[in-house]
């Protein structure tokens, strides 16, 4: 767990308890004060509804999409020691993507947007699989990079037949995890070609390339250089912008003002979840040496070293970075609330999207 800058009898485990509790306390209390905290009872209902939605999406979309490989999703083998985590989060990853996609369409006044919402569901699930692979399974990620890289991404974007060629390679891929991800990618790009031929599509493709680059660059880095902080932010926020761009393609005739408002709203939502991710994962990221902007900010002296240090955690807890980050999250949540409460966006879509953001904010903290 890295070297100790100075000796202390205070156990590391208690520092981790403090980090876990304090990060959650300041967040919950801040959101409560702002009236932006979903009550426990409401959350339980919300979570049950979202899990049911996710299970339905899994059956209706992933089953035909994955074909013979679908049954691996239920296997106790997939993703080794992360199996339980993967299986429990799967429905929520699908449901979150779906709801964000649907909400992004509906606040633009679009109806019948289930098709785009499904694409967003699969995209968000794919991103979570990609993240898991790159964060915790370097060997799988290495093999994946032999099959999928910047050039393949470009091919998929430029040519309609790219997805079929990607699927053609699956015969030689032994690992179920890789086949799942490649099938998801192929499906996603085949759908994109069905909907996207416009300037908005170019923006979507650019955002996808940037998101891919940030994902790859963020692997196994915990140093605090400004460049890495940017990568950390982009890795977390760009997928939200991909969802926004997908909705935008569906609404080419939306006025400039509304379009700008949608983009700003998504910027707030994306940054909220980026900061929330780092705040709630602070203990896990410390233990597993994953990039975390809160820890990295205090880890300058260990740049390039073996990992976060005891002292880095002491410094993080000794300062006010947790409170500042909680304040930032609260401000973003407030901004989402204010924007969606304005007349720019149609009701009830705006109210529904706010509930989705607040519900998943609550869920992130559990």
């Amino acid at each position, binding site marked *: 767990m890295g070297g100790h800058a100075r000796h202390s009898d205070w156990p590391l485990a208690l520092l981790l*308890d403090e980090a876990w509790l304090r990060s959650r306390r300041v967040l919950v209390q801040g959101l409560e004060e702002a009236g932006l905290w979903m009550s426990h009872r409401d959350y339980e209902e919300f979570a*049950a509804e979202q899990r049911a939605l996710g299970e339905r999406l899994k059956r209706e979309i992933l*089953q035909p999409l994955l074909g013979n490989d679908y049954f691996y999703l239920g*296997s106790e083998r997939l993703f080794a020691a992360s199996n*339980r985590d993967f299986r429990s989060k799967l429905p929520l990853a699908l449901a979150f993507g779906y709801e964000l996609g649907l909400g992004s369409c509906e606040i633009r006044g679009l109806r019948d947007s289930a098709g785009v919402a499904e694409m967003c569901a699969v995209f968000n699930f794919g991103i979570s699989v990609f993240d898991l692979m790159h964060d915790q399974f370097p060997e799988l990620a290495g093999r994946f990079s032999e099959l999928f890289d910047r050039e393949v991404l470009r091919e998929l974007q430029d040519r309609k037949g790219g997805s079929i060629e990607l699927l053609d390679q699956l015969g030689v891929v032994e690992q179920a995890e890789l086949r799942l991800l490649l099938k998801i990618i192929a499906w996603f790009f085949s759908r994109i070609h069905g909907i996207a031929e416009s300037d908005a599509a170019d923006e979507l493709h650019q955002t996808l390339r940037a998101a891919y680059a940030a994902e790859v660059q963020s692997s196994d880095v915990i140093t605090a250089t400004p460049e890495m902080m940017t990568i950390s932010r982009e890795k977390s926020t760009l997928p939200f912008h991909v969802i926004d761009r997908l909705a935008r393609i569906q609404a080419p005739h939306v006025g400039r003002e509304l379009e700008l408002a949608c983009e700003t709203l998504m910027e707030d939502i994306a940054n909220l979840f980026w900061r929330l991710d780092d705040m709630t994962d602070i203990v896990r990221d410390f233990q597993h040496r994953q990039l975390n902007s809160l820890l990295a900010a205090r880890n300058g002296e260990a740049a390039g070293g073996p990992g976060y240090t005891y002292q880095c955690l002491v410094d993080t807890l000794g300062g006010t970075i947790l409170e500042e980050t909680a304040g930032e999250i609260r401000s973003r949540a407030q901004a989402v609330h204010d924007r969606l409460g304005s007349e720019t966006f149609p009701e009830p879509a705006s109210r529904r999207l706010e509930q989705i953001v607040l519900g998943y904010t609550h869920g992130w903290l559990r």
Partner: protein
Amino acid sequence: MWDSLNDGKVVGTAIAKAGDYLLAQRSRDGLWRDFSTLAGASSDWVTAYVCVAVGGLDLTRSAVTGAIRRLYFRQRPNGGWSYNKSVPTDCDTTAWVLCALAEMPMWRPSAIERAVRYIIRHQAGPTKGFATYAPSDRIERFIGAFGPEVTVGWHSAHVCVTAVALQSLLELGASTDEGAAAERALNYLQACRSCRGLWESYWWPGEAYATYHALKALAAADRLRTLDLRSTVNSLCDNQLGNGAWSGGASTEPHAFSTALNVLALLLCEHRDALQAAARGIDWLIRNQCQSGSWQIAPILRIPPPMVEDPCTVDDWRLNEIGTGVIIEDRNGIFTTATSLRALTVFRAMSV
């Protein structure tokens, strides 16, 4: 068979009935209790096992959350948990509780870290497998034995304990020390695999429990990929009875506990033959579920005399009696029902 079970409704109904049964079996304090031994019934161990088995089911979510909260407060100062309140802590119970804690948010990282360290202290002897008790647990004092040779069996490394300890370390352990400990224990586990591709257990008669959990531990370490599982699948299928069930251990009759564990082991193998055999096992489980939602119980837990290192050396096992040298039933049917429910849930999740 696989296809006929795939509409999900039949399996779903069996899962709901089993879930209801388990909910009704909770004690007033929200814990599950089962098995009748000299030390009384087990609470912490059985509760943790049930929480892991039913984890993720909507029906039991709130009961599991409550039970896990209570388990947090029952951790002993040495970091471990025990069979029940009056018995010294042990590695197996602690590993099961850790696996249960993984079902929930990590409320207290220090509790998990202390438990992980407790488990690592049970890595025993040259084999580097995990033992149920370490000398610091002082089980000999609890049972009134004199001298370490009297409890040498309970202090030895066992596959059934090692497999669950590994699952907990691989899922929740974070440091390189734990990684190294796990690596050595994984080698022990692989070395203990018989030429038939199965594993023998210490605390459980038959091969089903140890085989499923050894496979699961190896899967958690991503070692199944490189293991030839054909002999395992062949042996599991050879042991299957004509009606789709498995017997095993103290009983020659088919029983749900053995059937469920064999099904779970087959599902981990992911071979076509294995899946078909698993489906036949599931069909048997559904046909033999009692109206209450539970299954017929059988003697499943073996308590060897503490000095016995190899249970095969004991000729006479007494059934459903108190003491050691016995094989006993889970008289409340909780262990059997939880295991069967787990098999049904995993099968449903893998069904297309």
